[in-house]
């Protein structure tokens, strides 16, 4: 049935190459600019080892920031990620070293060392979600609880002591290589890709965005708002747990006091530099990936060029502002 004569203009979206799509992101411009700058200025920048160093260092940030992107998409925020990293990082060695309970088979021990900490982190993520959905506590405060208490829990578990270990199977997650790619980098790419698909193609992905865009409307269309919100906190918790495992595996040591310290700010900054609004309703995983890379490159650039730490802070601040500004400009045009 034709109702009125208003014309519907044809779809004018051209799906170009990957590069074309990337160039839509201003973050990508900032990223390119940094690369060019480094090629000119930084000694020995163009080498595989540089790539390797940067990718392995950025992996944990990307993994955590991916979860953070989902949380932020629902209009929330997760301050507890660093503490959850500490907890999972504290528990894992206790399992495969048998401090917690004796396990005979080393293979089983390592398998449990991977699963239990992540499950615990997911459980704590669920707790965050529970506070947010059940009591309608604002996310920043709800997760502040575990931000404060979580690290304390990790420290209590380990009594603050450093756990030093050597376990090649467990440490494969950080030291190993899959098809020539460092395991943590491979994990990072897989997780980012999965999250991208989740947001783009799945029902729950669309629901996440809708909840962040207008919660009331989402509920009125039958979206299980509480469930959706809980899910993102569980995912964020789980990814933080995984990142915690990578960090301790990389260092052959677990230090509950420091694992994941300040990670929440890095992750949030990556999300913001990547162009997702902190008010929710958007999730830009590619942007987050690029945002994390930008932040990592800024850090590398300052280190490699011997900028004193105090000055580096100022430069980093300026670069974050500039990157976000460029990205906003580019998104508008």
């Amino acid at each position, binding site marked *: 049935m034709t109702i009125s004569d208003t014309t519907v203009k044809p779809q004018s979206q051209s799906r170009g190459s990957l590069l074309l799509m990337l160039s839509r992101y201003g973050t990508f411009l900032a990223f390119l600019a940094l690369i060019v700058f480094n090629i000119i200025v930084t000694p020995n920048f163009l080498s595989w*080892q540089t790539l390797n160093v940067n990718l392995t260092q950025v992996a944990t940030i990307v993994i955590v920031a991916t979860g953070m992107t989902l949380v932020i998409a629902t209009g929330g925020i997760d301050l507890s990620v660093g503490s959850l990293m500490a907890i999972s990082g504290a528990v894992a060695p206790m399992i495969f070293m048998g401090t917690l309970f004796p396990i005979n088979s080393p293979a089983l021990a390592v398998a449990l060392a991977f699963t239990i900490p992540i499950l615990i982190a997911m459980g704590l993520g669920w707790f965050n979600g529970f506070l947010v959905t059940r009591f309608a506590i604002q996310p920043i405060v709800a997760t502040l609880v575990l931000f404060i208490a979580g690290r304390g829990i990790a*420290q209590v578990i380990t009594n*603050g002591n450093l756990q030093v270990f050597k376990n090649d199977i467990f440490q494969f997650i950080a030291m190993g290589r899959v098809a020539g790619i460092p395991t943590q980098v491979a994990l990072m790419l897989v997780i980012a890709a999965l999250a991208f698909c989740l947001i783009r193609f799945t029902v729950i992905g669309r629901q996440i965005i809708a909840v962040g865009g207008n919660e009331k409307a989402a509920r009125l269309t039958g979206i299980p708002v509480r469930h959706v919100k809980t899910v993102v906190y569980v995912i964020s918790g789980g990814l933080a747990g995984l990142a915690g495992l990578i960090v301790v595996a990389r*260092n052959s040591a677990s230090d509950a*006091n*420091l694992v994941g310290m300040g990670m929440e700010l890095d992750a949030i900054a990556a999300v913001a530099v990547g162009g997702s609004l902190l008010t929710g309703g958007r999730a830009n995983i590619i942007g987050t990936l690029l945002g994390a890379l930008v932040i990592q490159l800024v850090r590398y650039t300052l280190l490699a060029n011997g900028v004193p730490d*105090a000055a580096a802070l100022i430069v980093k601040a300026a670069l974050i502002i500039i990157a976000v500004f460029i990205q906003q400009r580019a998104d508008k045009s």
Partner: protein
Amino acid sequence: DVPKLKQKDKYKVGFAQTESNNPWRIAQTNSMKETAEKLGYQLVYTDAAGSAAKQVADVNSMIAQGVDLIFLAPREEKPLIPAVMAAKKAGIPVILLDRSVDPKLAKAGEDYLTFIGSDFIKEGQRVAEWLVKNANGKTKIIELEGTTGASPANDRKKGFDEAIKAAGGFEIVASQSGDFARDKGRQVAEALLQAHPDADIVYAHNDEMAIGAISAIEAAGKVPGKDILVLSIDGGKEAVGLVVDGKIGAVVECNPRFGPKAFETMARYAKGEKIEPKLINDDKFYDSSNAKAELAGAY
């Protein structure tokens, strides 16, 4: 003058720790707690979580609770002066541990009883002296600093840098903060080694960063101890073990076991003995010559 301390069987003493986010601090706290427990004293323990201001507030709450004596591990030289003065005013003697306060503003034997600890500048110097003798032609140094603004970081840098400069022939190609942390130390070392492939010495302000640097060196395909000489301060068991393995060249001890000496000093004071204004720990020095033998004794 410093308030007097009555002789008693059991004391209620305060211990104001600055933070407990690294193994060294934790070892120090444990040592204090264990000794107090052994003596049967009641220990009022506070943790300032890295804030000088909170540490002053902690000391004030100890004063309010009427402790007999305060052990203070001051976070910083200057901002802790008010805490020392407040305790003095309240008639409570203070013993400083491991870091001191500004000597221009407060004096040992007058405002506080004494200082027990190491000399951070000296630690840096000792590392430098060893290096000058054992460099074997290596000259290019990467320095991993402690937390920016922290006094051990400043002093360990000062002592080392000045001694190295005086010796001549060395070059510090990069000096960046690794926050006294293993992970951060490793990441910074990774970047610096990449930017300065010619560097052949790494001087880290503590064990944790040195260990981080070793894994960065290995990841870069070099051999620690051979291609790159690693130097460190603190001398924990793990680091001494690495000296045995040859991965760390030398490490200066900075012993965190303050308990026995601290409480012993307190007892001496209660008995009326005169206390020296400075009690410097005699810290060990580990290198390949003695590491194996001393390993068991390292904290």
